[in-house]
């Protein structure tokens, strides 16, 4: 039996178990108001089922992780696919730990979709095992990456609880200025989540259809002596080009809904690596996400937040506030250890300096500074509850930027995990 094949099967199993777990959670909460049953017993029963299914999902996920480790003879955390799946797994572990403390099964209602999104996002990246370059071949890398991911997973649970808190307390019926602002931002957060789902769906839809387009891009570089030189490179698209690369000609393009030619050209000032393709992907994600969001709004006939809000009744907001804070408080030392201290130890061995102001390092520091500011603010009056929940949400945005955004936008030593 091939371990790598077995591990991918386990991965698929984990993914579906998570999805079922999420559906059961929805039944648990949504079925409260069904007739002929005691709401309390219903929630208890179904959230129990949902939790067990999620735990099975985690078990399958762990199976995936260890068989892949065994099969490839290296810990699967060395490329974006492996790292993101590991992060998803860590979120589940963090969720189980927080659950063990607080016994609030409904937390899974938000931790699970987060895991599902991240695991699905991971599948966007190439899944094959890649051999390590020598600088990555160190025990400290493994320790650094796993610990950092675990710390970030607790921040993710803090985010999930914070978002739940907001959906619980932001009243979508109020019309005061402050309430309206809060409603708008909650709705925007949900919209962003939908756009991310839109991104994943678009990738898989076009991948399933086998879409391809190819461009030849000419790049003019000016060297130090002021001499111009032109290089051309082929750029592959897997989504129909709304934006083609700057200064490029179409070599090959599958037609899409009658679209034969790229619609627009990427502006010249976007000159990062593969800027055109990234812009195109972002635009597609926003289009698909907005479509999804629009359909949801049509079906629900109200804002998503307003639709979810009533189901959150009966959950104690102060518990959510504390869970969010507690998750971050548990995650903070783990994150410090993994993302800063172990990272420094490894950097000192691999690159012979413990700190080099590489963008990824700086963003880890930014994350750390952000959460230390959060923890200090929690001590002051007036920073519990809604403000604190918003901070937890923003914090997770920073975490995700550190993990993904830095690789997409800024290049550096960590770009081995590139997209």
């Amino acid at each position, binding site marked *: 039996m091939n371990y790598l094949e077995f591990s991918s099967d386990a991965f698929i199993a984990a993914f579906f178990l998570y999805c079922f777990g999420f559906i059961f959670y929805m039944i648990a909460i949504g079925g409260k108001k069904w007739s002929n049953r005691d709401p309390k017993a219903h929630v208890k029963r179904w959230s129990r089922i949902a939790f067990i299914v999620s735990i099975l999902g985690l078990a399958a996920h762990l199976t995936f992780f260890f068989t892949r480790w065994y099969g490839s003879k290296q810990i699967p955390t060395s490329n974006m696919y492996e790292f993101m799946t590991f992060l998803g797994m860590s979120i589940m572990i963090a969720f189980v730990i927080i659950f063990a403390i607080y016994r609030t099964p409904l937390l899974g209602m938000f931790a699970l979709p987060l895991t599902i999104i991240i695991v699905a996002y991971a599948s966007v990246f190439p899944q094959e095992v890649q*051999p390590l*370059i*020598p600088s990555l071949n160190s025990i400290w890398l493994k320790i650094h990456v796993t610990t950092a991911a675990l710390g970030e997973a607790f921040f993710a649970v803090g985010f999930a609880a914070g978002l739940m808190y907001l959906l619980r307390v932001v009243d979508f019926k109020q019309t005061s200025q402050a309430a309206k602002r809060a409603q708008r931002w909650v709705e925007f957060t949900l919209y962003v989540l939908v756009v991310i789902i839109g991104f994943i769906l678009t990738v898989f839809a076009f991948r399933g259809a086998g879409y391809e387009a190819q461009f030849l891009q000419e790049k003019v570089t000016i060297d130090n002596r002021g001499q111009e030189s032109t290089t051309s490179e082929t750029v592959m698209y897997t989504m129909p080009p709304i934006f083609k690369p700057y200064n490029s000609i179409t070599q090959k393009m599958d037609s899409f809904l009658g679209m034969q030619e790229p619609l627009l050209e990427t502006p010249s*000032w976007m*000159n990062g690596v593969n800027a055109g393709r990234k812009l195109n992907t972002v635009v597609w994600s926003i289009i698909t996400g907005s479509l999804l969001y629009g359909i949801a709004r049509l079906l629900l006939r109200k804002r998503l937040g307003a639709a979810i809000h009533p189901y959150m009744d009966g959950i104690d907001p102060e*518990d959510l506030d504390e869970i969010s804070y*507690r998750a971050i408080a548990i995650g903070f030392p783990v994150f410090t250890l993994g993302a800063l201290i172990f990272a*420094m130890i490894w950097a000192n061995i691999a690159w*012979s300096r413990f700190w080099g102001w590489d963008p990824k390092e700086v963003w880890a520091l930014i994350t750390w500074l952000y959460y230390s500011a959060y923890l200090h603010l929690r001590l002051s009056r007036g920073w519990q*509850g809604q403000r604190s929940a918003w901070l937890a949400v923003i914090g997770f945005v920073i975490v995700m930027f550190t993990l993904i955004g830095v690789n997409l936008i800024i290049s550096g030593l960590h770009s081995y995990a590139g997209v």
Partner: protein
Amino acid sequence: MFQNTKCECGHQNHIGTVLCESCGKPLGEELLSDEPLEMRYDGVARRSQKANPNFIDKIWNFFSSVKIAVYLIIITLLASILGTIFRQENLLNEDPATYYEIQHGTIGKIYYMLGLSHTYESWWYTTLLVMIGTSLVVCSLDRVLPLYRALSKQQIRKHLRFILRQKVVYQAQISGDETKIVSALGEHLKKKRYRVHMDGTALLAEKNRFSRWGPYINHIGLILFLLAVLARSIPGFQMDMYVAVQQGQTVEIEGTSYYIKNEQFTVDYYTDDELPDALKGTARAKLYETKAVLYECTANCNNVTQEPVLKEVDRHDIVMNDPLIYEGLKAYQSGFDATPRLEAVKPVIINKETGEEYGPFELEIRNPKTSFEVGPYKLELHSQFMEFAIGENGEPTTLSREPNAPAYLFILSGPELKAGGEPYLYFPNQIDKLQFNQDALNRPIADRFEIKVNGMENVKLSGPTTYLNIRKDKALPYIWIGATISMIGLIMGFYWHHRRIWLRVDRGELSLGAHTNKNFYGMRSDVAWALGKAGIEVDPKSLDNGGNKT
């Protein structure tokens, strides 16, 4: 403004005290509210709070404020973000003066002019770090001493208002022997590892007080860390340089008395079987290793006029993640260049008319001898060009000092040659010979004579060059110590929680208040558990006195 700081229990408190240090009765503005009490630092006054602050006090109070600390953190965070917008100078190979404008246009130019291209080395970023460091010292000192004093002499019987304005509160009428009930509760709490103190019908149960010191220990670690980072800028504390050592060569490590030799360099590549399809056929290094020897110079150092005397002090096979370490000096594997270069050739002279062959003679590429006797012929090296080119004035010239396209102009003399010799331009590299058309340049002599190398056995190629990063960092141990202390503090502060329960019975009415610095959920379940054991059933949630209201 006159402020009475004497509590009704008779205790004289410091200015700024929120809760009487002795009985816990709320003072000042806290007295007026019914909200749960602000229990930070147990309501003691910050050490430096004074009625009439002078200039020094004002500076001190500035740094003593947590609000200022949070602002400093936020500003540092934003400044750090600015530094990641464009690539920093230290990661650049190009000249920073032109790079930013060429790459990013006007914005890049402004970025460079504002000094954001070296944010993390700038004076203002360092100022921010210094201010954070100051804030760490002052904030901690101002709070930890009063807190220590307050926690080490706690009164057991607290003021009723103090108890009833905690976040976890229980109040009920009880019947029976009051002292017995209180001591029974105390016994139960002991099982939960509480330390229980009794004073008649009053009780104080406390656990994990040490976790209160966590933040301060963390801060001490951070201060040590920052000082260690700072110490690195003291001359001699650290060194960071790269040396390129060709196989077989010994190179001086500048600024030290050490020399390092590359005895052998080997590189392993991944085989195609090990690579995924996309990478097949590419040379992806799996492992590279330098067999290195470290020498110390014992005499004639730093003197070009004499050969230095070297003594071997250490040897190590350096691979990635495994440096040579000798007395604080570390040599890391950084990179390599395996491209072979010509080092010397052994050409022969051929008389094309007779077919006779003479030689070979050895021609070193970089520093050749200037005259050779080969058979009956004499070769005088007239000039050498490391990277041959024809200059603007039509004369041969060199474009660099690296042997990228070496060429040698010989004056050939001997039988069948003109008196005074004839010039012959020789290119050792076959590719240069064709590119510059050696034969055409050498006409007419090229029809009668040829200088050429017979076979690869007459070519000496250079071994691979290894790039080593030489480091010295005396501050490193302190960095790790600081980080470790900081980590211990974090763990103490975040994974243990200081929990206290105050209880008193007044005329048959039991009043209980409990406080923790984190995790009220756990606090409530502890109280509910103890009460349950004593026969009072309560739902943990009902103990909540509110407080998180926004």
